[in-house]
């Protein structure tokens, strides 16, 4: 079984159920959108899959990526990439440094690492930007760098936590198309959390609503 599988996942806080129980399969290259109002626990669900669930939450169920259960693994061993509303490029590293941070340490020698970084930048229409300070990039450029950084770590699933929320309308379409195309190219099962119906339409996949009553699927 390939792709991302959530099996009977339920998350509670202070004894009250917050999310689920929820089961779903996200096939490689598919984008499933989770929608719901703020406070509905949709970001909590991503935190659970990524392995960042705060201690106050209680979760049960299983998460599998490509048939391997990842629920007990620390976040860095899950091979699950995540993008947030902010690009969160490391301000102390150059654009190239940010990309190289994502690249596995086993990729060597340095010349090859540099070549891969340059190739990723070219794919993002940012050729020659490796030595730039991230602070000098536009919002759209930063968003593309953030995605390429995530992809260079070779994730086997992708989590998108309202990643287009802070971009203006024109830019949003571009970045959205860029992200979905890359995820599809690489056959990544992708879970998108948003409260923007436009995002869900653009993703073109199934939509699951959480919060405000029992989940409909």
């Amino acid at each position, binding site marked *: 079984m390939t792709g991302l599988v959530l099996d009977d996942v339920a998350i509670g806080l202070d004894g009250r159920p917050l999310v689920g129980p929820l089961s779903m399969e996200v096939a490689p290259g598919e984008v499933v959108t989770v929608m719901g109002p703020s406070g509905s626990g949709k970001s909590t669900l991503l935190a659970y899959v990524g392995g*960042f669930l705060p201690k106050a939450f209680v979760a049960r169920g299983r998460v599998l990526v490509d048939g391997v259960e990842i629920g007990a693994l*620390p976040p*860095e061993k899950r091979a699950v990439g*995540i993008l*947030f509303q902010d690009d*969160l490029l490391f*301000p*102390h590293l150059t654009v190239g*440094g940010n990309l190289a941070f994502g690249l596995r340490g086993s990729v060597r020698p340095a010349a090859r690492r540099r070549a891969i970084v340059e190739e990723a930048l070219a794919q993002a229409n940012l050729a020659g930007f490796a030595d730039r300070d991230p602070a000098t990039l536009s919002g759209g450029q930063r968003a593309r760098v953030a995605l390429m950084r995530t992809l260079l770590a070779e994730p086997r699933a992708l989590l998108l936590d309202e990643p287009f929320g802070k971009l203006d309308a024109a830019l949003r379409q571009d970045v959205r198309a860029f992200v979905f195309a890359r995820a599809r190219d690489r056959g990544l099962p992708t879970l998108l959390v948003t409260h923007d119906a436009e995002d869900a339409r653009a993703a073109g996949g199934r939509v699951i609503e959480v919060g405000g009553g029992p989940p409909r699927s």
Partner: protein
Amino acid sequence: MTARPDPLRLAPGLTLALFLLPIGAGLLGTLAPAFGIFPALGETRLSLDAWRDLVSQPGFSTSLRLTLTSGFLSTALALLFACGFAALASTRAGTARLERALAPLLATPHVAVAIGLAFLIASSGFLARVVSPWLTGWERPPALAIVRDPWGLSYVAGLAIKETAYLVLMVLAAQGQVRAAQALAAARALGYPPLVAWAKVVLPAIYRQIRLPVYAVLAFSLSNVEVALVLAPGTPPPLAVLAMRWFASWDLSLYPTAAAAATLQLLVVVAGIGAWRLAEVVVKRLHRAWCARGARGGLSGPILGIGGAGAILSGVAVLGAIGMMALWSVAEGWRYPDALPRALSLRSWERATPTLVDLVGTTALVAAIATAVALALALACLENEARRDLKPGAGALWLLYVPLLVPQIAFLFGAQVALVRLDLDATLVAVVWAHLLFVLPYVFLSLADPFRALDPRYARIAAGLGAGPWRTFLAVKLPMLARPIATAFAVGFSVSVALYLPTLFAGAGRIMTLTTEAVTLSSGADRRVVGVTAFAQAALPLLVYAAALTVPGLLAARRRAAA
């Protein structure tokens, strides 16, 4: 995968043990002899002889009165000044710009401020010279005790002007946390003039946040030795000086009396903080009733205005004090009542160089090691907190303040006895450890907010990219926190440089730093020599502050250029 236990789990326990054990052991070692138990002298029976002896010492009651009045008065003044400044700064942009002067005022050690202030205000000091003889008719210094006056007023001034800078920092930080600007705007829209609005709606909100720092100032003002040695009257001196004199004497039979005085000092501070707390309750009631009356005018505006002026004057006095030390250190033939020296030369510096190199070396070494250890412990605790998703409680904050609230004299003597037993007294290790107790709280407090404010999603992103917790800590968090870490280092360094009693006791008087030397010289040495040492003492932390403000930026620029 195998789950190795994370060594960081031990960090909070280790940190607490490192600084609470010596304080606990030290307090025991002071309390026991105060009640007659002093095995080194063969005394093992409980008795109150030491207390009887203490109370019957000539000048004891004067000494106690001086301790209380100067401690409370200077703390109240510093608090008034700090509040006045914050009120002015949040209503006038011009005053807010003065905040930039805060770093040098914070970095200058108490002793340097006290010595420089004495140079300024003494009857033979700069201010008297400026107006003599044309105004005063003084051809020679009058026999007028302005410094070390019997009421302790110059001592109060010395404490207040230095503590004002610290409380201003605390008040401004608190103001940022409580959304003071909105509350102020709302009150002004209801027709309250700016300063009255500040007193009515901002002050209650920020006081909760600055309560512990105020207690720390009160505890220090009630129990410090180094400022008292320079500015307070000597016959009789404040209680802590009395205790130190007896501890430092060669007469072993005075030890129990000294221990009783140190124990009394502890009681004075505990009771003093208790009394302050009671006063808070009363003032809170009065404040509430005052707010309910709805008066738009009244005295609060002028009082805060005067407080703000006092804060600015304090800042000017500290800068003037630094200038005085600098001027004396290069003065040549500065006779009374000349306002300025006849000539300037570097002769005093040249003569002092051999000693100064040693003193600066020891001072910087102790400060650098103590601060580095404190940084490592603070970062370990904070990273442990982040990894385990712990929420720090109010109790942890109180623990952190313990070394700042317990009077130094009350535990350092006992701690020294323990050091002798461990064969560690007069070693660098002992001095560094003693400094760590006081450096750690400041380093932790200055680092905690920026560390906790770091967006946790950076760590999540890094983990999503395959970076383990240690790589995330070293390659993401530490570089992103370079600026606050550098600032925390400067804060810790300046705290260490300023420490007097811990150096004296842990070093058994044999390890000399700029501070111990400056205090020793201040009682009677040539002003040019005092000027050199005291100026060096003030300049060393200032240099480290300046470096802390510039180096992270330079490193970032170089990294960008090299990348």
